[in-house]
């Protein structure tokens, strides 16, 4: 079957596909006003014929940009009476503790579009006040007259009993069939009213725009005689149907970055690496994620936008730590003489000083160029010549003069500081889960990843770095390997000792019924998906829980000895302590449903034997590594020409069409028989 994945990023639209047994790629500019055009162009560039395609996978920044740019729908919110301001009050916290002029998250719904329904449930889901549907009818009429496009409904304790939300939803949908209506329990049956309200409001806010875009895209594809399946990449690392994406767009916020980590996981499986860290360094940021047994960690929720004033989103998302150090991150000196890199980025325009578009701000790419690590004539496949003199001037003016240091020392400093910042982030993703970075390998990709990966790994004693095939467009490749995935959750707070096993079984059965209904909607054959059960457990009295895998839906009955043991072990692993004698509580029950792709085209390509191109002449140039005074004469090799089984010892620079790999002195590179590069780092004793 022919498949393509298209990843629309802020600057570029990347395509990777497998057509007639061959891998095709393309890169084109994103057209924010009409993203469908970017899709069309990338398909044309890759010579991918719509009627010949069997499946189209897609990731897009449209949902997250709608939030960041505040360009969503006119959205209303319906809450429980007395709780109109839950969304505005939030948690009351100030992340920037010493900032007298702090800003907290601004709701996406203004107060005058926030309405209260007269209804109330208690924590057990029992109705204290039955819902006043006549009142809801009146609100529904008002929403129509106000020109509202989307409505979020979030009632207190609806995670325990969604009956009131359902009733209100029916009234609203009947009265305003064209409005985009989201009921909180439909996307998240978990307690904590502010976070659930925010997630629901986000879905409603982006819903009309994303749904319209997906509709346009689908119409375009079908008009071009595309007869295959359309699937969207979602933040949880899986894919979903187009129909689900149109009602649950909030779950596609982080589609692009996540796909690369899925690809890294598959590569780890192919190479037999149990613990690795995916490292993706692009133009504006670097991202990393811990990958155990081929699966990136998934966390419940994160904040969209600035950590202090962004919007909380509570759905599962691949746990990616991001730092503001990409190839375009600007280096600067503060008033006290401290040298910093990022988080401000020069972007694609004007871009780094070395692009010669007039920017005077030195960025990481400028430093890499001045250090001889990047080839000025081979950038972006030779499509853009880089101006080394401009890079030197920018570094001298902004860093060298204030610090009184020569240009190359500054350049080395910029690279080192960026590498340190990234290494701390990489370390954080491992140690937070109790994994020692020395027991991991790094899989590095993204435009700038292979250039910095070895230095980052060395900093925290990661012994081995792997550079996959196609590192520059690896995220789009990752989409071709993602499973269809659904997450279901239900809050159940109580002591594990007194837990009624029948209640847990009933909840799991309900979750499984929901899961099977979604399978039927998406055409997944019964038996075609894997059901994984989890319980969020904690010591009685704790707040934060750990998500513990269960052997099945009945694992909490009969004393739950296995789950208890797994919890104590996980607590010891994460926090360095456990208390086997203490009582445990359940917080949430979860079901994760996944259906692997029927084909393994992309994985097969990862594992395909490597055939080198005709050998290319090896050259050399001076490259600066750890000493800004003394460059090393360094071999320059062309990756497509390196044969399987070849080994070499650094220093070396390995260049390929969309990336550059820097091998430090003493490190040893092997080209695997499937064409990936394995770099074993040499640590002095």
């Amino acid at each position, binding site marked *: 079957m022919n498949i393509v994945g298209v990843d629309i990023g802020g600057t570029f639209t990347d395509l990777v596909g497998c057509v007639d047994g061959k891998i095709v790629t393309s890169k084109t500019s994103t057209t924010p006003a009409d993203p469908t055009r970017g899709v069309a162009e990338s398909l044309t560039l890759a010579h991918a014929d719509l009627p010949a395609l069997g499946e189209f996978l897609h990731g897009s920044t449209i949902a997250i940009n709608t939030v960041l740019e505040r360009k969503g729908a006119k959205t209303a919110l319906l809450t429980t009476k007395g*709780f109109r*301001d839950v969304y505005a009050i939030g948690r*009351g916290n*100030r992340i920037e503790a*010493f900032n007298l002029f702090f800003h*907290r998250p601004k709701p996406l719904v203004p107060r005058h579009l926030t309405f209260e329904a007269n209804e109330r449930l208690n924590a057990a889901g029992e109705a204290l006040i039955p819902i006043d549907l006549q009142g809801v009818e009146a609100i529904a009429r008002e929403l129509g007259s106000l020109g509202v496009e989307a409505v979020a409904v979030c009632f207190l304790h609806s995670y325990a009993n969604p009956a009131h939300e359902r009733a209100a939803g029916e009234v609203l949908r009947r009265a305003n069939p064209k409005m985009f209506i989201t009921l909180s329990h439909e996307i998240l049956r978990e307690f904590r009213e502010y976070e659930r309200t925010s997630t629901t409001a986000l879905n409603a806010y982006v819903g009309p725009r994303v749904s319209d875009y997906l509709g346009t895209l689908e119409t375009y594809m079908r008009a071009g005689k595309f007869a295959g399946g359309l699937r969207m990449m979602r933040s949880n690392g899986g894919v979903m149907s187009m129909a689900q994406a149109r009602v649950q767009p909030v779950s596609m916020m982080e589609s692009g970055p996540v796909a690369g980590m899925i690809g890294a996981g598959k590569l780890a499986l192919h190479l037999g690496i149990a613990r690795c860290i995916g490292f993706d360094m692009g133009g504006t940021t670097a991202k990393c994620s811990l990958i155990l047994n081929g699966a990136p960690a998934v966390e419940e929720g994160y904040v969209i936008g600035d950590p202090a004033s962004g919007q909380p989103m509570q759905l599962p998302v691949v746990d990616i730590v991001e730092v503001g150090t990409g190839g375009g991150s600007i280096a600067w000196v503060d008033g006290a003489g*401290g040298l910093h890199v990022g988080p401000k980025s020069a972007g694609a325009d004007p871009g780094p000083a070395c692009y010669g578009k007039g920017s005077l701000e030195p960025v990481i790419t400028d430093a890499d160029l001045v250090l001889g690590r990047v080839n000025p004539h081979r950038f972006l496949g030779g499509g853009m010549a880089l101006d080394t003199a401009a890079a030197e001037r920018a570094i001298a003016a902004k860093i060298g003069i204030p610090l009184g240091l020569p240009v190359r020392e500054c350049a080395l400093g910029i690279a080192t500081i960026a590498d340190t910042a990234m290494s701390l982030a990489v370390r954080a993703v491992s140690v937070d889960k109790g994994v020692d970075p020395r027991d991991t390998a790094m899989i590095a990709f993204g435009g700038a990843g292979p250039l910095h990966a070895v230095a980052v790994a060395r900093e925290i004693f990661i012994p081995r770095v792997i550079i996959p095939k196609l590192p520059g467009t690896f995220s789009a490749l990752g989409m071709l390997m993602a499973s269809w995935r659904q997450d279901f959750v239900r809050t159940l707070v109580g002591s594990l000792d007194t837990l009624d096993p029948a209640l847990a079984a009933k909840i799991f059965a309900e979750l499984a019924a929901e899961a099977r209904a979604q399978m039927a909607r998406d055409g997944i054959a019964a038996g075609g998906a894997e059901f994984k059960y989890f319980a969020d457990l904690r010591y009685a009295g704790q*707040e934060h829980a750990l998500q513990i895998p269960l052997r099945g839906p009945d694992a909490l009955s009969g004393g739950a000895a296995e789950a208890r043991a797994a919890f104590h072990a996980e607590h010891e692993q994460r*926090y360095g302590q456990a208390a086997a004698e203490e009582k445990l509580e359940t917080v949430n029950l979860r079901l994760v449903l996944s259906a692997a792709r029927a084909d393994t085209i992309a994985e097969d390509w990862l594992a395909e034997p490597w055939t080198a191109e005709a050998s290319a002449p090896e050259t050399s140039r001076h490259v600066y590594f750890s000493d800004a005074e003394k460059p090393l004469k360094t071999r320059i090799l062309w990756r497509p020409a390196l044969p399987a089984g070849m080994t070499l010892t650094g220093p070396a620079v390995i260049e390929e069409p969309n990336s550059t790999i820097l091998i430090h002195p003493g490190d040893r590179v092997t080209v695997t028989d499937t064409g990936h590069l394995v770099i074993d780092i040499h640590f002095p004793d």
Partner: protein
Amino acid sequence: MTQARETQPQTHPITVEVVRNAIVAYADEMANALCKAAYNMMIYEVRDYCCGLIDLQGRMISQNRGGLPIFLADLGVAVEDAVARWGLGGFLPGDVLIMNHGETCGQHLNNVVLSCPVFHNGELVAFTANRAHWVDIGGARIGFGSSATTEIFAEGLQMRSLKIYEAGKRNDTLWQIINDNLRFPEAALGDMRAQIASCQLGARRYGELLTRYGRATVEACIARVWDQADAAVRKVVGEIPDGVYSAESFLDNDGRDLETPLKIKVTVRVAGSVMSIDFSEMNPQTNSPINSGRSGGIAGARVAFKALTSPDLDVNEGCFRALEVVLPEGTMLSARPGAALGLWSIALPTVIDTILKALAPALPAKIPAAHKGDMGGCSFYGSTPERGRFLLMNIFGGGWGGRPHEDGEDASVSVCQGDVRNSPVELQEIRYPFIVESHSLRGDSGGAGKHRGGLGVELTYRCLAPCQVNINFERTKLPPWGLAGGGSGGTNYAVIRHADGAPERKVLKGTQIPLKAGDSVAFFTAGGGGYGDPAERARGDLARDVEEGFISSAGKALYTAKAAAGKP
């Protein structure tokens, strides 16, 4: 930058940057390990903790980001006391110290410090330490807000630099004493476990850094990081016009003698690149728990100083070298040994607001109007047959003052509380026998101004079981003030309504007030002061405020030129 650097040639600017990032990352890792494993909401929601690396002289090498702002480089006194007691040679790997001594730490006894010595090549090189608020420490107080005590000995168990572990072996006697003297021992011991693991983690990390770069280099880099912070801070202080600036305000009362206000008087002297904050004329210490030791006064001065001079820099010793704090013994911010300290931090939001007010004439663009002015929260406690003993605590936000360029924020925690979160209503109703009837913004509570003060909140609890409540509101007589012609914010109060028909009561302060099932308590928190003449408020902003219900039609009258002209 001092000349000392010449003797420490290892401080290459790049290595300095590596060390700077690393030491803060370690403190953050310690905080994460503590917060995620903690057993009480004062840690996992209120973030009433701090974690850090301390050198052998008690100086703060680094501190975590996101902890409680008033814990500003104040772990050092605990480490100094440990060193004084045991001697530098008196520690072994595997030792863990516990400390909450009131006289030394100057804070309420719930704030318990755990620390571990760090060894490198067999040599003692530093300490890792954290302070966290235990939910109970025994004594006469339950939850927060009690005004019942007049001396420290009624406030719970004191532990002064004791070894809870010696060379890895637990001191079971001390463990038993803690277990038997606290109301919620499982929570305290769980928190202590988390604190110890956090210290041990930090010690491992710092040891790795020393192994990587060598002790001399790391310590030289740390000195350089401090110097850089100091230089950045002095630059900002240098831009403040030299002069003597003072301001005065007052707290309502000490909660026992309800008639006598407590004076907060500060004098700020700016001379060149040094700022001195003088508390000599502060109210004398009280016969109530509204007292702190010196660390309270220093914390108040440091929060204000940091917010003005280096809000973005990580906290370390260097941030405060340009600050002198004048604090004679015997004021309510420097109480003598034996004083009750239960409400040690209550005065601090007002102290900080008053320092800012003093400097407003010198820094007109950098000072907002006064904020809600207290650290408000509630404690309900009791026991039910099904749940046993319970203690519900929550923290309230309120309005922040209007700013020289924009409105103040609504419903936010005080200047003394940073990443402190209120407790979700759904969580409270799952855990405790209460129904929350409303949680909303309090219209008209923001002080009028060109830039309006932020709004306070209204939060109403109805009891499902008999219980008791502590109410401890402050700044009700001196409302959050406006600046540059702005009006005051609405003040804090609570209303108790009885199910049996007894008349409702407005309450500002009260300890162990009994409640029956069906009774309700509504808390109203203060709004921020306004900034600038209300008549100058943009008409579009005013219309929006009315449309959104932030200002009522009655409240709108304050914004007419006539009403504003009549104001002092």
